[in-house]
Protein backbone atom coordinates (compact mmCIF):
# COMPACT_ATOMS: atom_id res chain seq x y z
CA UNK A 1 0.00 0.00 0.00
CA UNK A 2 1.11 3.50 -0.78
CA UNK A 3 2.36 5.71 2.00
CA UNK A 4 0.05 8.54 3.07
CA UNK A 5 1.03 11.44 5.34
CA UNK A 6 -1.20 13.80 7.29
CA UNK A 7 -2.55 16.29 4.78
CA UNK A 8 -1.45 19.91 5.08
CA UNK A 9 -4.36 21.25 3.01
CA UNK A 10 -7.40 20.09 1.09
CA UNK A 11 -5.32 20.26 -2.08
CA UNK A 12 -2.61 18.13 -0.52
CA UNK A 13 -5.23 15.66 0.73
CA UNK A 14 -6.64 15.32 -2.80
CA UNK A 15 -3.18 15.29 -4.33
CA UNK A 16 -2.13 12.28 -2.26
CA UNK A 17 -5.24 10.37 -3.33
CA UNK A 18 -5.93 11.58 -6.89
CA UNK A 19 -2.65 13.18 -8.00
CA UNK A 20 -4.60 16.25 -9.08
CA UNK A 21 -1.48 18.32 -9.75
CA UNK A 22 -0.16 15.73 -12.15
CA UNK A 23 -3.55 15.39 -13.83
CA UNK A 24 -3.71 19.18 -14.26
CA UNK A 25 -0.28 19.16 -15.90
CA UNK A 26 -1.09 16.33 -18.26
CA UNK A 27 -4.49 17.74 -19.22
CA UNK A 28 -3.82 21.48 -19.29
CA UNK A 29 -0.68 23.33 -18.29
CA UNK A 30 1.76 20.92 -19.92
CA UNK A 31 -0.40 19.89 -22.83
CA UNK A 32 1.25 21.78 -25.68
CA UNK A 33 -0.50 23.57 -28.52
CA UNK A 34 1.30 25.23 -31.46
CA UNK A 35 1.20 29.02 -31.51
CA UNK A 36 0.86 29.19 -35.29
CA UNK A 37 -2.92 28.68 -35.47
CA UNK A 38 -6.01 30.79 -36.14
CA UNK A 39 -9.65 31.04 -35.00
CA UNK A 40 -10.57 27.86 -36.93
CA UNK A 41 -8.68 25.90 -34.24
CA UNK A 42 -11.43 26.90 -31.76
CA UNK A 43 -14.12 24.78 -33.46
CA UNK A 44 -13.36 21.75 -31.27
CA UNK A 45 -14.12 23.61 -28.07
CA UNK A 46 -17.18 25.21 -29.68
CA UNK A 47 -18.42 21.71 -30.56
CA UNK A 48 -17.80 20.53 -27.01
CA UNK A 49 -19.75 23.47 -25.60
CA UNK A 50 -22.59 22.95 -28.07
CA UNK A 51 -22.72 19.29 -27.07
CA UNK A 52 -23.03 20.31 -23.41
CA UNK A 53 -25.84 22.72 -24.37
CA UNK A 54 -27.61 19.83 -26.13
CA UNK A 55 -27.11 17.57 -23.14
CA UNK A 56 -28.42 20.07 -20.57
CA UNK A 57 -31.41 21.22 -22.64
CA UNK A 58 -32.12 17.56 -23.47
CA UNK A 59 -32.21 16.62 -19.79
CA UNK A 60 -34.88 19.25 -19.15
CA UNK A 61 -36.93 18.25 -22.19
CA UNK A 62 -36.74 14.61 -21.11
CA UNK A 63 -38.60 15.43 -17.89
CA UNK A 64 -41.81 16.28 -19.77
CA UNK A 65 -41.51 14.49 -23.10
CA UNK A 66 -43.71 11.36 -23.49
CA UNK A 67 -42.54 8.72 -25.99
CA UNK A 68 -46.03 7.61 -26.96
CA UNK A 69 -47.60 7.97 -30.42
CA UNK A 70 -50.79 9.44 -28.91
CA UNK A 71 -49.18 11.93 -26.56
CA UNK A 72 -45.70 12.71 -27.95
CA UNK A 73 -46.83 15.54 -30.21
CA UNK A 74 -48.81 17.29 -27.47
CA UNK A 75 -46.17 16.74 -24.81
CA UNK A 76 -43.79 18.73 -27.02
CA UNK A 77 -46.06 21.32 -28.58
CA UNK A 78 -48.43 21.86 -25.67
CA UNK A 79 -46.85 20.74 -22.37
CA UNK A 80 -43.25 21.80 -23.03
CA UNK A 81 -44.05 24.86 -25.14
CA UNK A 82 -46.96 26.28 -23.11
CA UNK A 83 -47.31 24.66 -19.69
CA UNK A 84 -43.73 24.29 -18.54
CA UNK A 85 -42.11 27.56 -17.45
CA UNK A 86 -39.17 28.21 -19.78
CA UNK A 87 -39.97 24.95 -21.60
CA UNK A 88 -39.72 26.90 -24.86
CA UNK A 89 -36.17 27.87 -23.94
CA UNK A 90 -34.98 24.26 -23.65
CA UNK A 91 -36.72 23.30 -26.85
CA UNK A 92 -35.33 26.20 -28.83
CA UNK A 93 -31.82 25.71 -27.40
CA UNK A 94 -32.05 22.01 -28.26
CA UNK A 95 -33.41 22.58 -31.78
CA UNK A 96 -31.04 25.43 -32.66
CA UNK A 97 -28.01 23.62 -31.18
CA UNK A 98 -28.87 20.45 -33.13
CA UNK A 99 -28.79 22.46 -36.33
CA UNK A 100 -25.81 24.72 -35.55
CA UNK A 101 -23.70 21.80 -34.32
CA UNK A 102 -23.65 20.50 -37.90
CA UNK A 103 -22.55 23.88 -39.25
CA UNK A 104 -19.60 23.79 -36.86
CA UNK A 105 -18.89 20.13 -37.63
CA UNK A 106 -18.68 20.99 -41.35
CA UNK A 107 -16.36 23.96 -40.64
CA UNK A 108 -14.24 21.70 -38.37
CA UNK A 109 -14.10 19.02 -41.10
CA UNK A 110 -13.21 21.36 -43.94
CA UNK A 111 -10.59 23.06 -41.76
CA UNK A 112 -9.03 19.63 -41.30
CA UNK A 113 -9.17 18.95 -45.03
CA UNK A 114 -7.71 22.37 -45.93
CA UNK A 115 -4.72 22.10 -43.58
CA UNK A 116 -4.12 18.37 -44.18
CA UNK A 117 -4.81 17.53 -40.53
CA UNK A 118 -5.67 13.91 -41.37
CA UNK A 119 -2.17 12.90 -42.44
CA UNK A 120 1.10 11.70 -40.95
CA UNK A 121 -0.08 10.09 -37.72
CA UNK A 122 -3.30 12.08 -37.53
CA UNK A 123 -5.39 9.41 -39.32
CA UNK A 124 -7.04 8.25 -36.08
CA UNK A 125 -8.14 11.81 -35.35
CA UNK A 126 -9.85 11.90 -38.74
CA UNK A 127 -11.38 8.42 -38.32
CA UNK A 128 -12.75 9.05 -34.84
CA UNK A 129 -14.02 12.42 -36.06
CA UNK A 130 -15.88 10.78 -38.93
CA UNK A 131 -17.36 8.22 -36.52
CA UNK A 132 -18.53 11.16 -34.43
CA UNK A 133 -20.08 12.72 -37.52
CA UNK A 134 -21.96 9.46 -38.23
CA UNK A 135 -23.21 9.09 -34.64
CA UNK A 136 -24.21 12.76 -34.55
CA UNK A 137 -26.17 12.17 -37.77
CA UNK A 138 -27.94 9.19 -36.21
CA UNK A 139 -28.56 11.23 -33.07
CA UNK A 140 -30.05 14.08 -35.12
CA UNK A 141 -32.25 11.71 -37.09
CA UNK A 142 -33.54 9.82 -34.04
CA UNK A 143 -34.23 13.12 -32.26
CA UNK A 144 -36.16 14.35 -35.27
CA UNK A 145 -38.59 11.43 -34.82
CA UNK A 146 -39.54 12.36 -31.29
CA UNK A 147 -42.01 15.28 -31.76
CA UNK A 148 -44.01 12.82 -33.93
CA UNK A 149 -45.15 15.44 -36.40
CA UNK A 150 -45.66 14.94 -40.12
CA UNK A 151 -41.98 15.43 -40.99
CA UNK A 152 -40.93 13.11 -38.16
CA UNK A 153 -43.19 10.37 -39.45
CA UNK A 154 -42.40 10.71 -43.14
CA UNK A 155 -38.67 11.20 -42.67
CA UNK A 156 -38.81 8.04 -40.55
CA UNK A 157 -40.70 6.23 -43.29
CA UNK A 158 -38.35 7.31 -46.10
CA UNK A 159 -35.08 6.80 -44.23
CA UNK A 160 -35.99 3.36 -42.84
CA UNK A 161 -37.09 2.36 -46.36
CA UNK A 162 -33.50 2.94 -47.50
CA UNK A 163 -32.63 -0.24 -45.60
CA UNK A 164 -34.70 -2.35 -48.00
CA UNK A 165 -31.66 -1.97 -50.28
CA UNK A 166 -33.64 -1.09 -53.42
CA UNK A 167 -34.02 -4.18 -55.63
CA UNK A 168 -32.90 -6.44 -52.77
CA UNK A 169 -36.40 -5.92 -51.28
CA UNK A 170 -35.13 -6.56 -47.77
CA UNK A 171 -38.53 -5.58 -46.34
CA UNK A 172 -37.94 -7.89 -43.40
CA UNK A 173 -35.01 -5.68 -42.40
CA UNK A 174 -37.14 -2.53 -42.65
CA UNK A 175 -39.90 -4.15 -40.57
CA UNK A 176 -37.31 -5.33 -38.06
CA UNK A 177 -35.89 -1.83 -37.67
CA UNK A 178 -39.41 -0.41 -37.22
CA UNK A 179 -40.83 -3.26 -35.17
CA UNK A 180 -43.98 -2.81 -37.27
CA UNK A 181 -45.08 -2.57 -40.90
CA UNK A 182 -45.03 1.22 -40.63
CA UNK A 183 -43.45 3.62 -38.12
CA UNK A 184 -45.63 3.21 -35.00
CA UNK A 185 -45.28 2.83 -31.23
CA UNK A 186 -42.45 0.28 -31.32
CA UNK A 187 -40.55 2.58 -33.71
CA UNK A 188 -41.02 5.69 -31.58
CA UNK A 189 -39.99 3.91 -28.35
CA UNK A 190 -36.81 2.44 -29.78
CA UNK A 191 -35.73 5.68 -31.45
CA UNK A 192 -36.40 7.43 -28.15
CA UNK A 193 -34.08 4.94 -26.44
CA UNK A 194 -31.42 5.44 -29.12
CA UNK A 195 -31.69 9.21 -28.86
CA UNK A 196 -31.49 9.54 -25.09
CA UNK A 197 -29.25 6.62 -24.15
CA UNK A 198 -27.34 4.50 -26.62
CA UNK A 199 -26.22 7.17 -29.10
CA UNK A 200 -25.23 9.78 -26.46
CA UNK A 201 -23.19 7.04 -24.73
CA UNK A 202 -21.48 6.24 -28.02
CA UNK A 203 -20.85 9.95 -28.62
CA UNK A 204 -19.25 10.37 -25.17
CA UNK A 205 -17.00 7.38 -25.81
CA UNK A 206 -16.03 8.65 -29.25
CA UNK A 207 -15.26 12.14 -27.92
CA UNK A 208 -12.85 10.43 -25.50
CA UNK A 209 -11.26 8.56 -28.40
CA UNK A 210 -11.10 11.72 -30.53
CA UNK A 211 -9.23 13.58 -27.78
CA UNK A 212 -6.96 10.62 -27.07
CA UNK A 213 -6.10 10.37 -30.77
CA UNK A 214 -4.87 13.96 -30.59
CA UNK A 215 -2.34 13.46 -27.79
CA UNK A 216 0.49 11.73 -29.61
CA UNK A 217 0.49 13.52 -33.01
CA UNK A 218 -0.59 16.80 -31.36
CA UNK A 219 -2.64 19.57 -32.93
CA UNK A 220 -1.69 20.57 -36.49
CA UNK A 221 -0.70 24.16 -37.31
CA UNK A 222 -1.26 26.69 -40.10
CA UNK A 223 1.79 25.59 -42.08
CA UNK A 224 1.62 21.87 -41.38
CA UNK A 225 5.06 22.27 -39.80
CA UNK A 226 6.42 19.23 -37.96
CA UNK A 227 7.14 20.61 -34.49
CA UNK A 228 9.42 18.87 -31.98
CA UNK A 229 7.05 19.20 -29.05
CA UNK A 230 9.57 17.91 -26.50
CA UNK A 231 12.23 20.44 -27.45
CA UNK A 232 9.81 23.34 -27.80
CA UNK A 233 8.10 22.64 -24.48
CA UNK A 234 11.50 22.45 -22.72
CA UNK A 235 12.33 25.82 -24.23
CA UNK A 236 9.03 27.21 -22.95
CA UNK A 237 9.51 25.79 -19.45
CA UNK A 238 13.10 27.13 -19.37
CA UNK A 239 11.64 30.62 -19.71
CA UNK A 240 11.91 31.29 -23.46
CA UNK A 241 8.15 31.73 -23.91
CA UNK A 242 8.56 34.05 -26.91
CA UNK A 243 11.02 31.83 -28.78
CA UNK A 244 9.08 28.61 -28.21
CA UNK A 245 6.74 27.50 -30.95
CA UNK A 246 4.24 26.12 -28.45
CA UNK A 247 2.03 27.36 -25.63
CA UNK A 248 0.14 25.77 -22.76
CA UNK A 249 -3.34 24.37 -23.46
CA UNK A 250 -4.55 25.78 -20.13
CA UNK A 251 -5.02 28.60 -19.69
CA UNK A 252 -3.12 30.18 -22.60
CA UNK A 253 -4.69 28.45 -25.58
CA UNK A 254 -8.03 28.19 -23.74
CA UNK A 255 -8.19 31.94 -23.16
CA UNK A 256 -7.83 32.53 -26.92
CA UNK A 257 -10.36 29.78 -27.58
CA UNK A 258 -12.85 31.28 -25.17
CA UNK A 259 -12.71 34.57 -27.09
CA UNK A 260 -13.99 32.75 -30.20
CA UNK A 261 -16.45 30.78 -28.07
CA UNK A 262 -17.78 34.08 -26.69
CA UNK A 263 -18.47 35.42 -30.17
CA UNK A 264 -20.04 32.09 -31.13
CA UNK A 265 -22.33 32.08 -28.10
CA UNK A 266 -23.60 35.60 -28.93
CA UNK A 267 -24.49 34.32 -32.41
CA UNK A 268 -25.97 31.13 -30.94
CA UNK A 269 -28.25 32.85 -28.42
CA UNK A 270 -29.25 35.44 -31.01
CA UNK A 271 -30.57 32.50 -33.01
CA UNK A 272 -32.24 30.90 -29.96
CA UNK A 273 -34.07 34.07 -28.96
CA UNK A 274 -34.75 35.86 -32.24
CA UNK A 275 -34.34 33.46 -35.11
CA UNK A 276 -35.16 29.91 -33.94
CA UNK A 277 -37.66 29.37 -36.78
CA UNK A 278 -35.06 27.95 -39.17
CA UNK A 279 -34.67 24.94 -36.88
CA UNK A 280 -38.43 24.31 -36.57
CA UNK A 281 -39.98 22.98 -39.76
CA UNK A 282 -43.57 24.29 -40.09
CA UNK A 283 -44.73 20.94 -41.53
CA UNK A 284 -43.71 19.25 -38.29
CA UNK A 285 -46.32 21.27 -36.42
CA UNK A 286 -48.97 18.93 -37.88
CA UNK A 287 -49.34 15.67 -35.94
CA UNK A 288 -48.09 12.52 -37.71
CA UNK A 289 -50.60 11.08 -40.19
CA UNK A 290 -49.74 7.80 -41.89
CA UNK A 291 -52.33 8.39 -44.61
CA UNK A 292 -51.16 11.80 -45.78
CA UNK A 293 -47.71 12.55 -47.23
CA UNK A 294 -46.57 16.18 -47.03
CA UNK A 295 -46.19 17.78 -50.48
CA UNK A 296 -42.41 17.94 -50.16
CA UNK A 297 -40.32 15.71 -47.95
CA UNK A 298 -36.86 17.11 -47.38
CA UNK A 299 -34.41 16.60 -44.54
CA UNK A 300 -32.89 19.30 -42.36
CA UNK A 301 -30.32 21.44 -44.19
CA UNK A 302 -27.30 19.47 -42.96
CA UNK A 303 -28.44 16.26 -44.69
CA UNK A 304 -29.51 17.93 -47.95
CA UNK A 305 -26.24 17.34 -49.81
CA UNK A 306 -26.33 13.57 -49.34
CA UNK A 307 -30.10 13.50 -50.00
CA UNK A 308 -29.49 15.28 -53.30
CA UNK A 309 -26.97 12.60 -54.27
CA UNK A 310 -29.71 10.00 -53.73
CA UNK A 311 -32.43 11.83 -55.60
CA UNK A 312 -31.57 12.25 -59.29
CA UNK A 313 -30.91 8.54 -59.92
CA UNK A 314 -33.10 5.45 -60.17
CA UNK A 315 -33.52 3.57 -56.87
CA UNK A 316 -30.53 1.21 -57.00
CA UNK A 317 -28.00 3.61 -58.49
CA UNK A 318 -29.28 6.32 -56.15
CA UNK A 319 -28.75 4.06 -53.14
CA UNK A 320 -25.25 3.18 -54.28
CA UNK A 321 -24.38 6.86 -54.82
CA UNK A 322 -25.83 7.67 -51.40
CA UNK A 323 -23.85 4.86 -49.74
CA UNK A 324 -20.72 6.11 -51.51
CA UNK A 325 -21.30 9.65 -50.23
CA UNK A 326 -21.78 8.38 -46.67
CA UNK A 327 -18.49 6.47 -46.42
CA UNK A 328 -16.13 8.22 -48.80
CA UNK A 329 -15.06 10.99 -46.41
CA UNK A 330 -13.89 8.32 -43.96
CA UNK A 331 -11.32 7.12 -46.52
CA UNK A 332 -9.83 10.57 -47.14
CA UNK A 333 -6.44 9.89 -45.45
CA UNK A 334 -5.85 7.01 -47.87
CA UNK A 335 -7.32 8.59 -50.99
CA UNK A 336 -5.03 11.58 -50.63
CA UNK A 337 -1.77 10.05 -51.95
CA UNK A 338 0.38 13.16 -51.50
CA UNK A 339 3.05 13.22 -48.75
CA UNK A 340 2.52 16.98 -48.24
CA UNK A 341 0.99 18.15 -44.98
CA UNK A 342 0.58 21.81 -45.90
CA UNK A 343 -2.40 24.08 -46.47
CA UNK A 344 -4.35 23.40 -49.66
CA UNK A 345 -3.25 26.78 -51.05
CA UNK A 346 0.29 25.42 -51.50
CA UNK A 347 -0.75 22.12 -53.03
CA UNK A 348 -1.52 23.05 -56.63
CA UNK A 349 -4.41 21.02 -58.05
CA UNK A 350 -5.53 19.99 -54.58
CA UNK A 351 -6.42 23.63 -53.85
CA UNK A 352 -8.81 23.56 -56.81
CA UNK A 353 -10.13 20.19 -55.65
CA UNK A 354 -10.80 21.56 -52.16
CA UNK A 355 -12.78 24.61 -53.30
CA UNK A 356 -14.60 22.61 -55.99
CA UNK A 357 -15.68 20.05 -53.37
CA UNK A 358 -16.85 22.77 -50.97
CA UNK A 359 -18.75 24.58 -53.72
CA UNK A 360 -20.26 21.34 -55.03
CA UNK A 361 -21.58 20.47 -51.57
CA UNK A 362 -23.15 23.93 -51.27
CA UNK A 363 -24.83 23.47 -54.67
CA UNK A 364 -26.05 19.99 -53.66
CA UNK A 365 -27.45 21.46 -50.44
CA UNK A 366 -29.32 24.19 -52.31
CA UNK A 367 -30.73 21.77 -54.91
CA UNK A 368 -31.80 19.30 -52.23
CA UNK A 369 -34.13 21.92 -50.82
CA UNK A 370 -35.76 22.75 -54.17
CA UNK A 371 -38.50 20.63 -55.77
CA UNK A 372 -37.09 17.90 -58.03
CA UNK A 373 -38.17 19.25 -61.38
CA UNK A 374 -36.88 21.03 -64.49
CA UNK A 375 -33.54 22.81 -64.32
CA UNK A 376 -33.04 22.05 -60.60
CA UNK A 377 -33.21 18.33 -61.37
CA UNK A 378 -30.47 18.75 -63.99
CA UNK A 379 -28.24 20.91 -61.78
CA UNK A 380 -28.70 18.36 -58.99
CA UNK A 381 -27.69 15.51 -61.29
CA UNK A 382 -24.59 17.36 -62.51
CA UNK A 383 -23.59 18.26 -58.95
CA UNK A 384 -24.07 14.65 -57.78
CA UNK A 385 -21.92 13.36 -60.66
CA UNK A 386 -19.33 16.05 -59.91
CA UNK A 387 -19.18 14.88 -56.28
CA UNK A 388 -18.45 11.30 -57.32
CA UNK A 389 -16.05 12.45 -60.04
CA UNK A 390 -14.05 14.62 -57.62
CA UNK A 391 -13.50 11.67 -55.29
CA UNK A 392 -12.36 9.48 -58.17
CA UNK A 393 -9.94 12.24 -59.26
CA UNK A 394 -8.50 12.77 -55.77
CA UNK A 395 -6.00 9.84 -55.70
CA UNK A 396 -4.87 10.69 -59.23
CA UNK A 397 -4.20 14.40 -58.74
CA UNK A 398 -2.54 13.88 -55.35
CA UNK A 399 -0.30 11.10 -56.68
CA UNK A 400 1.35 13.54 -59.08
CA UNK A 401 1.62 16.33 -56.55
CA UNK A 402 5.10 17.77 -56.17
CA UNK A 403 6.74 17.46 -52.77
CA UNK A 404 6.96 20.86 -51.07
Amino acid at each position, binding site marked *: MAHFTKATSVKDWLNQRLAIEKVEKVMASEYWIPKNINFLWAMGLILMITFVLLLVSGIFLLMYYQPNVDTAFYSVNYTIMRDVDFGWLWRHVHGVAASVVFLIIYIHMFTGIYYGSYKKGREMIWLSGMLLFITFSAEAFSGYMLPWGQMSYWAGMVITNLFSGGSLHADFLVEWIRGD*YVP*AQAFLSRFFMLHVLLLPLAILGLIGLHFAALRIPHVNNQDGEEIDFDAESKKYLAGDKVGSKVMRFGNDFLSKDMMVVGIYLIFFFYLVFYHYGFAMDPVNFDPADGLKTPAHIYPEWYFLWSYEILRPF*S*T*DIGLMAFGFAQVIFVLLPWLDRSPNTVPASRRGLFAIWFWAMLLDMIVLTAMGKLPPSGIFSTIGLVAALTFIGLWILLPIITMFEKKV
Partner: protein
Amino acid sequence: MGKAFGAVAAVGAVGSLVAMKRTWDPLPSVKAAGFTTLDMSIYEENKLVTEKWRGKPIFVLKKTAEMVAKQTEKQKARDIVIGGAHYMVSIGLCTHLGCIPAYDAGKEGFLCACHGGQFDFSGDVTKAPPPRGFDIPPFKIDGNLLVLGEAGPEYMKMKETGITL
Protein backbone atom coordinates in the same frame (compact mmCIF):
# COMPACT_ATOMS: atom_id res chain seq x y z
CA MET B 1 -8.44 -22.73 -20.41
CA GLY B 2 -8.51 -19.72 -22.74
CA LYS B 3 -10.24 -21.76 -25.42
CA ALA B 4 -12.85 -23.10 -23.00
CA PHE B 5 -13.54 -19.62 -21.73
CA GLY B 6 -13.74 -18.34 -25.32
CA ALA B 7 -16.18 -21.08 -26.33
CA VAL B 8 -18.51 -20.40 -23.39
CA ALA B 9 -18.32 -16.66 -24.02
CA ALA B 10 -19.05 -17.17 -27.73
CA VAL B 11 -22.17 -19.21 -26.95
CA GLY B 12 -23.30 -16.49 -24.56
CA ALA B 13 -22.58 -13.75 -27.09
CA VAL B 14 -24.52 -15.51 -29.86
CA GLY B 15 -27.38 -16.19 -27.43
CA SER B 16 -27.61 -12.54 -26.42
CA LEU B 17 -27.47 -11.36 -30.04
CA VAL B 18 -30.38 -13.69 -30.88
CA ALA B 19 -32.34 -12.33 -27.91
CA MET B 20 -31.58 -8.74 -28.94
CA LYS B 21 -32.60 -9.39 -32.53
CA ARG B 22 -35.85 -11.06 -31.47
CA THR B 23 -36.67 -8.28 -29.03
CA TRP B 24 -36.67 -5.85 -31.96
CA ASP B 25 -39.00 -8.05 -34.06
CA PRO B 26 -42.62 -6.87 -34.55
CA LEU B 27 -44.78 -8.02 -31.61
CA PRO B 28 -47.32 -10.84 -32.12
CA SER B 29 -50.13 -8.32 -31.57
CA VAL B 30 -48.75 -6.19 -34.40
CA LYS B 31 -48.51 -9.21 -36.71
CA ALA B 32 -51.99 -10.49 -35.82
CA ALA B 33 -53.87 -7.24 -36.45
CA GLY B 34 -53.33 -7.59 -40.16
CA PHE B 35 -56.73 -8.05 -41.89
CA THR B 36 -59.07 -5.48 -43.47
CA THR B 37 -62.35 -6.27 -45.23
CA LEU B 38 -63.68 -3.90 -47.90
CA ASP B 39 -67.23 -3.80 -49.31
CA MET B 40 -66.48 -3.20 -52.99
CA SER B 41 -70.01 -2.13 -53.98
CA ILE B 42 -69.74 1.33 -52.41
CA TYR B 43 -67.02 2.83 -54.62
CA GLU B 44 -67.67 5.42 -57.34
CA GLU B 45 -66.01 5.36 -60.73
CA ASN B 46 -62.70 7.27 -61.19
CA LYS B 47 -62.80 8.46 -57.60
CA LEU B 48 -59.82 7.38 -55.53
CA VAL B 49 -60.59 6.16 -52.02
CA THR B 50 -57.80 5.51 -49.52
CA GLU B 51 -58.40 2.64 -47.12
CA LYS B 52 -56.03 1.41 -44.42
CA TRP B 53 -54.37 -1.98 -43.99
CA ARG B 54 -51.52 -2.71 -41.57
CA GLY B 55 -51.12 1.03 -41.08
CA LYS B 56 -50.48 1.50 -44.78
CA PRO B 57 -52.75 3.40 -47.16
CA ILE B 58 -54.60 1.23 -49.69
CA PHE B 59 -55.70 2.88 -52.94
CA VAL B 60 -59.06 1.69 -54.30
CA LEU B 61 -60.05 3.02 -57.71
CA LYS B 62 -63.10 1.75 -59.57
CA LYS B 63 -62.31 2.02 -63.27
CA THR B 64 -64.69 3.64 -65.75
CA ALA B 65 -65.89 1.60 -68.75
CA GLU B 66 -63.71 3.86 -70.87
CA MET B 67 -60.59 3.02 -68.84
CA VAL B 68 -61.35 -0.69 -69.03
CA ALA B 69 -61.82 -0.45 -72.80
CA LYS B 70 -58.58 1.43 -73.48
CA GLN B 71 -56.23 -0.36 -71.12
CA THR B 72 -53.37 -2.52 -72.33
CA GLU B 73 -52.91 -6.20 -71.42
CA LYS B 74 -50.24 -5.18 -68.88
CA GLN B 75 -52.58 -2.73 -67.19
CA LYS B 76 -55.46 -5.22 -67.32
CA ALA B 77 -53.41 -7.89 -65.58
CA ARG B 78 -53.37 -5.68 -62.47
CA ASP B 79 -57.18 -5.47 -62.30
CA ILE B 80 -59.23 -7.02 -59.55
CA VAL B 81 -62.63 -7.93 -61.03
CA ILE B 82 -65.58 -8.16 -58.65
CA GLY B 83 -69.17 -8.42 -59.86
CA GLY B 84 -68.15 -7.41 -63.39
CA ALA B 85 -66.51 -4.16 -62.23
CA HIS B 86 -62.77 -3.55 -62.58
CA TYR B 87 -60.81 -2.17 -59.64
CA MET B 88 -57.30 -0.97 -59.06
CA VAL B 89 -56.44 -1.97 -55.50
CA SER B 90 -52.87 -1.41 -54.33
CA ILE B 91 -50.65 -0.28 -51.50
CA GLY B 92 -50.62 3.50 -51.88
CA LEU B 93 -46.94 3.95 -51.26
CA CYS B 94 -44.46 4.97 -53.91
CA THR B 95 -42.20 1.98 -54.58
CA HIS B 96 -39.23 4.34 -54.51
CA LEU B 97 -39.10 5.38 -50.86
CA GLY B 98 -42.66 5.08 -49.56
CA CYS B 99 -44.27 8.50 -49.98
CA ILE B 100 -47.99 8.62 -50.82
CA PRO B 101 -48.57 9.77 -54.41
CA ALA B 102 -51.58 11.95 -55.20
CA TYR B 103 -54.25 11.01 -57.78
CA ASP B 104 -55.30 13.43 -60.51
CA ALA B 105 -58.72 12.28 -61.77
CA GLY B 106 -58.45 14.51 -64.86
CA LYS B 107 -55.09 13.10 -65.96
CA GLU B 108 -56.06 9.62 -64.69
CA GLY B 109 -52.67 9.17 -63.06
CA PHE B 110 -50.63 9.48 -59.87
CA LEU B 111 -47.77 11.84 -59.09
CA CYS B 112 -45.39 11.39 -56.18
CA ALA B 113 -44.31 14.78 -54.87
CA CYS B 114 -41.22 13.47 -53.11
CA HIS B 115 -39.05 12.54 -56.05
CA GLY B 116 -41.34 13.07 -59.03
CA GLY B 117 -42.35 9.44 -59.78
CA GLN B 118 -45.53 8.88 -61.84
CA PHE B 119 -48.04 6.02 -62.13
CA ASP B 120 -51.01 5.40 -64.45
CA PHE B 121 -54.59 4.62 -63.33
CA SER B 122 -53.84 0.90 -63.09
CA GLY B 123 -51.00 1.66 -60.63
CA ASP B 124 -48.22 0.84 -63.08
CA VAL B 125 -45.15 3.07 -63.10
CA THR B 126 -44.76 5.53 -65.97
CA LYS B 127 -41.86 7.69 -64.76
CA ALA B 128 -38.78 6.83 -62.64
CA PRO B 129 -37.35 6.83 -59.95
CA PRO B 130 -39.90 4.23 -58.71
CA PRO B 131 -38.61 0.87 -59.97
CA ARG B 132 -42.05 -0.77 -60.39
CA GLY B 133 -45.79 -0.18 -60.14
CA PHE B 134 -47.63 -0.06 -56.84
CA ASP B 135 -47.45 -3.29 -54.86
CA ILE B 136 -50.75 -5.15 -54.55
CA PRO B 137 -51.59 -6.36 -51.03
CA PRO B 138 -52.50 -10.03 -50.50
CA PHE B 139 -56.26 -10.24 -51.16
CA LYS B 140 -59.08 -12.74 -51.34
CA ILE B 141 -62.36 -12.15 -53.18
CA ASP B 142 -65.41 -13.17 -51.15
CA GLY B 143 -68.58 -12.27 -53.08
CA ASN B 144 -68.81 -8.48 -52.98
CA LEU B 145 -66.16 -8.32 -50.28
CA LEU B 146 -62.42 -8.04 -50.59
CA VAL B 147 -60.33 -9.36 -47.68
CA LEU B 148 -56.88 -7.82 -47.45
CA GLY B 149 -54.14 -9.78 -45.69
CA GLU B 150 -55.29 -13.18 -46.96
CA ALA B 151 -53.88 -14.59 -50.20
CA GLY B 152 -56.61 -15.87 -52.56
CA PRO B 153 -56.10 -17.66 -55.91
CA GLU B 154 -56.30 -14.42 -57.94
CA TYR B 155 -53.56 -12.88 -55.79
CA MET B 156 -51.39 -15.99 -56.01
CA LYS B 157 -51.66 -15.81 -59.81
CA MET B 158 -50.53 -12.16 -59.82
CA LYS B 159 -47.60 -13.04 -57.60
CA GLU B 160 -46.56 -15.95 -59.79
CA THR B 161 -46.71 -13.90 -62.97
CA GLY B 162 -44.62 -11.20 -61.33
CA ILE B 163 -47.27 -8.48 -61.48
CA THR B 164 -46.69 -7.77 -57.80
CA LEU B 165 -43.96 -8.69 -55.40
